[in-house]
């Protein structure tokens, strides 16, 4: 186990390094630079040259790259060009907000996905199963931004049931802890739903298929022959086996969740990493873009590692210590 972890850790560091290197050069290949925002009559080329020089942007690209790598290795993410604040501070504000959103969406994804999938499989070809199938296809096919706008239209503008943007109300001062919690929860509903529901729909489909495969297995017949009631056959004997392939799918889905967060945060004015990233890209705020890339890549790599470990825990036939599975 520990040897496996050490090897995976080394692999992860190499992978991170490659991802960041590619991002660095891609970013510089894109037209424009942090000065683009200042092109106006008051901002002379001479001033721009001075700013560039102070940021080190006039040095050869390869030199900038090595300087940046060295800083990064020390854990120094640099300073945002746009906000003139340490990137570390910006991230410290944005990451918890994004985590709140993505964890809520992930919980929706896993709970709703597995629940509906299992129920659909257990009641195969029932009206419930058919409605579920159609609903899943529908939810899965519509784009996030459209779903978000429709929900805002209905729930915020028409029936005023849920807020359409931000993480909390403006007048939270003096609220009790409970009302603050409820206020934040209400703000979370729409964005988390938009972010998680498509994945939940696809996981429900996978879960249903996987469950139906498992229900045909001989050991399910054995469980029934023992006299177990059908709900125990499904929830104990079938679920654990059926969840195995789905765990991997959920793990692989994480990058899409973080990608979706970019859109959802932008639409719902959610002050998270996604929105920070979009703004930073427009502003060519290189240090911020690179740092966010680093964080996202690290999250994805860690999630993959956790997926492998979860697989080993769920399936006794896999020994995680020996090369991560066979």
């Amino acid at each position, binding site marked *: 186990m520990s040897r496996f972890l050490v090897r995976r850790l080394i692999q992860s560091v190499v992978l991170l390094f490659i991802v960041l290197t590619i991002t660095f050069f891609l970013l510089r290949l894109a037209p424009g630079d942090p000065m683009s925002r200042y092109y106006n009559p008051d901002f002379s080329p001479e001033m721009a040259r001075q700013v560039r020089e102070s940021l080190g942007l006039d040095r050869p690209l390869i030199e900038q790259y090595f300087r940046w790598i060295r800083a990064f290795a020390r854990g120094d993410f640099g300073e945002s060009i746009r906000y003139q604040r340490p990137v570390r501070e910006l991230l410290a504000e944005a990451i918890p907000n994004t985590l709140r959103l993505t964890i809520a969406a992930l919980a929706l994804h896993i709970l709703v996905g597995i629940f509906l999938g299992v129920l659909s499989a257990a009641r195969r070809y029932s009206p419930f199963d058919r409605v579920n199938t159609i609903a899943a296809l529908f939810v899965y096919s519509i784009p996030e931004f459209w779903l978000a706008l429709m929900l805002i239209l209905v729930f915020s503008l028409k029936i005023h049931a849920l807020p359409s943007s931000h993480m909390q109300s403006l007048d939270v001062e003096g609220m009790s802890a409970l009302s603050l919690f409820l206020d934040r929860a209400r703000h979370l509903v729409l964005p988390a739903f938009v972010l998680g529901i498509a994945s939940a729909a696809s996981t429900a489909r996978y879960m249903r298929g996987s469950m139906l495969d498992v229900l045909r297995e001989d*050991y399910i017949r*054995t469980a029934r022959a023992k*006299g177990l009631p059908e709900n125990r056959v499904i929830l104990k*004997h079938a679920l654990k086996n059926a969840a195995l392939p789905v765990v991997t799918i959920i793990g692989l889905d994480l990058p899409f969740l973080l990608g979706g967060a970019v859109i959802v945060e932008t639409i719902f004015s959610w002050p998270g990493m996604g929105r920070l990233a979009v703004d930073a890209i427009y502003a060519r705020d290189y240090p911020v873009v690179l740092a966010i890339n680093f964080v996202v890549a690290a999250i994805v790599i860690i999630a993959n590692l956790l997926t492998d470990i979860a697989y080993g825990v769920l399936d006794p*036939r896999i020994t995680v210590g020996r090369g991560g599975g066979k």
Partner: protein
Amino acid sequence: MDTLIDVRNLTTVFETEQGGSRVVDGVSFHVDSAEAVGLVGESGCGKSVTALSIMRLISSPGRIAGGEILFEGRNLLALSEKEMRKVRGNKISIVFQEPLTSLNPVFTCGEQVREAIALHQKVSRSESKTRAIEMLRLVRIPDPEKRYGAYPHQMSGGMRQRVMIAMALSCEPRLLIADEPTSALDVSVQGQVIELLCELQARLRMAVLLITHDLAVVAQMASRVIVMYAGSIVEEAPVRELFDATAHPYTQGLLGSIARLGQRSGPLSTIPGNVPDPFGLPPGCRFSDRCPRRFEKCSSAEPPLIDISPAHRSRCWLCGGRG
């Protein structure tokens, strides 16, 4: 001896694109308490479906279309699903043919035995575990305390079948259905498992319905034999009588295949042709198209089961029936 289970006119149908297929077609037989009965026949003749019908474990597209299964005087086919669950694994248990796939890969062997005990007996968790270990010892799994925590993939096929037997016997059933319990095992292990079953049958005084296509195994364990062909019983006799005074040409074919191989065991595949599917049955006697002793009457009407001696019946016009 008193009758433990009395199957009457059991009919099980599988819905197919061509319509309902009568895979088990009006089967009647009984098993007495503590008796071992063999059920033999070529592959595909409906033995497993008969067994699963008794357990009421036939699932879509199959269904039990008719008949009665009287067990200790109650008709199993009339029980509610909840009442039936108290019979399964408790009064009637089954051991399947496929030891490699019949155990759940993500639970330990011991846990799977323990679960059956906890389900049907009011005992504490630790007590059910102790009993599960006792069951593993009973089926002669070495070092049962340690093997309790082993997963199925860590055990050989023979050991897994012993676990299945331990699970089936854990609630001391009145009837054990063993559906080809040794067919998937190495020849060297087959004998041991059959010996174990013989010994446990005597010790627990339970009835056994032993399904097999190996007549040598039947001779070793059963006192009575039922021969099935294409969903129907064609001969029924005490084991000695079946070997010494074989009445049905199909049974003769089965026995002949053993003789030709010059040994006491082997697959029953030397009767020319195959078991017809329920849609391809010939008119009259369902064995007539493969029968070496066929005559005109065979194609005109299906023979009934004709009594030859008090315990010996055969579904063949040669046995002198009128009809």
